[in-house]
């Protein structure tokens, strides 16, 4: 059962504080990286909810995030105020992810993974070929929100705004996991037969949790669109979903804090490796295999396991 232990809350708070200090003290580059980390961390928290706590490993979360980003961009272009447009983006992502989850829920294990991968690719190829969505050129001119007291058009203001959203998403997810529905979701993952014997409708909880996870991925999408002020089919491509899974494993699946630490490590590692080689995917690929072979607990999961041992 999920517990927001002092260690988890503390490690999360320390990481976010560290990122906030870095964006205050660092320059333009640091602030852009902090915003990038916040977007990825929100996406991976969403994936942790589905995969870590619900046992539904999805290879479509990048695509769901992209749907949220496009929903926001289109709603903003249609003239909606920024916050209403954000709500639209999140709702579209939740609807798309929920519908996809409902279909894929007929399958188990590896079939679920493959089915989500296929539907994610569907969203990508639809966006890629759709003239109304700008095709492979994407859509530009995406606005940033006005937040009282924060200058979100400046890198520092946006980084702080992104970190605030990350804290909000973390708190929401923790609250959900501690609720009755959240505990039910974990019970279903651990022992579907027992849950069925208690008369619990497994698919109802699972589909609901998948839709909630999709909504959070939509939050990441809206934030990503606001960050780069541009949306393109690149957002939906399957490697984005794969990367989210990599970060989840790297940080520690099923810990809620792991995604944030994983996202910070991954983005920093990526920029560091990209600094000396064009082929930084080599580093990521090798790292991924090593993390799995090392037991798959990830950085934070390993830390937690050793402290409790």
């Amino acid at each position: 059962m999920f517990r927001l232990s002092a260690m988890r809350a503390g490690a999360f708070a320390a990481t976010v504080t560290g990122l906030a200090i870095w964006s205050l003290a660092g320059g333009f580059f640091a602030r852009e990286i902090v915003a990038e980390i916040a977007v990825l961390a929100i996406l991976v928290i969403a994936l942790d909810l589905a995969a870590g706590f619900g046992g539904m490993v999805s290879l479509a979360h990048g695509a769901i995030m992209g749907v949220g980003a496009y929903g926001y961009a289109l709603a903003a272009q249609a003239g909606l105020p920024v916050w209403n447009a954000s709500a639209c983006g999140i709702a579209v992502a939740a609807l798309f992810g929920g519908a996809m989850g409902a279909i894929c829920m007929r399958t188990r294990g590896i079939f679920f993974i493959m089915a989500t991968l296929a539907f994610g690719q569907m969203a990508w190829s639809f966006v890629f070929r759709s003239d109304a969505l700008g095709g492979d050129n994407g859509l530009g001119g995406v606005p940033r929100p006005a937040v009282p007291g924060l200058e979100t058009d400046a890198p520092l203001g946006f980084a702080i705004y992104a970190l605030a959203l990350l804290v909000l998403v973390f708190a929401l997810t923790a609250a959900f996991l501690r609720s009755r529905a959240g505990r039910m979701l974990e019970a279903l993952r651990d022992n579907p037969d027992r849950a069925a014997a208690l008369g619990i409708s497994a698919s109802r909880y699972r589909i609901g949790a998948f839709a909630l996870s999709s909504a959070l991925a939509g939050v990441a999408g809206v934030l990503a669109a606001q960050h780069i002020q541009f949306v393109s089919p690149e957002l939906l491509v399957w490697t984005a979903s794969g990367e989210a899974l990599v970060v989840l494993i790297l940080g520690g699946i099923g810990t809620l804090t792991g995604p944030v630490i994983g996202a910070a490590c991954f983005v920093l590692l990526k920029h560091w490796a990209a600094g000396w080689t064009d082929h930084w995917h080599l580093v990521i690929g090798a790292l991924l295999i090593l993390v799995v072979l090392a037991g798959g607990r990830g950085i934070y999961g390993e830390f937690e396991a050793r402290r409790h041992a």
Partner: protein
Amino acid sequence: MSVFWTLQALNALQYAALLFLISAGLSVSFGLMGFVNLAHGALYMLGAYIGVSIAGGVGFWTALIVAPLAIGAIGAALHQGLLRRIAGAGPMPQVLVSFGLVFLAVEAVRIIWGDVPLTLDVPKALSGTRIILDTAYPSYRLFVILLGGAVALSLWAGMTRSHLGAAIRAAVENRDMARAIGIRTERLFLAVFTLGASLAGLGGVIAAPILSVSPSMAVTALIPALIVTVIGGLGSIPGAMLGAVIVAAIEVFGAALWPDASAVLIYAALAAALIWRPEGLLSAGRAR
């Protein structure tokens, strides 16, 4: 039948032959070991690159033999060195490790062959066209159809007529029972994985003159192959054949008749298949 329909039907068959070569190995190693190898598309891509390099030196026909053997060897090494260890570890580690392999393979290809897509000329003997039902059709594409058909037939015959095929079917049906009656499942897994990798490599070589050879092949081939496997059913050669024909027909006729919707038609078919028969049309053994 008008020229248009003949042409589209032949195109669908040619695409189905290619899809079958990629899907057969994926489906059987999947049904046998419960192992999803997302790197299967990467093996296909490597097959194309190695094929182009060999064909440039010693000609297409040598490449057609040697490249699949090389990919089979790579597949066997991967299986023994890495994949065997995580085959029983559940879907998540399998997805992650094979995903890591895709990263490594794509970057290796970019380092060795560069980012510019490569092309391969059609071999001289097959450079012309043939008239089929009043329709001129490139000989090379006919050759692809025939090769795919021949491989499908021999795999089907091997699965139903040979001892090895019987052992594979028994292991797909019930792995523990197969072990109990003395089938050496570990050796069987290695043999099937190697064969599947070689077939993916063969697919890569014969696709090279039709498509341009680029690192994106690793993914563009994987997705339809996974859909073929889901629609056709696990671990079954007839299932892979049927799935390949269905997917190819939807893609080719969809693109010709209803281009606006063609991008999503195949996924609609996948959704329909998952709702109607989640275990696939011709699944062998139980779904895992």
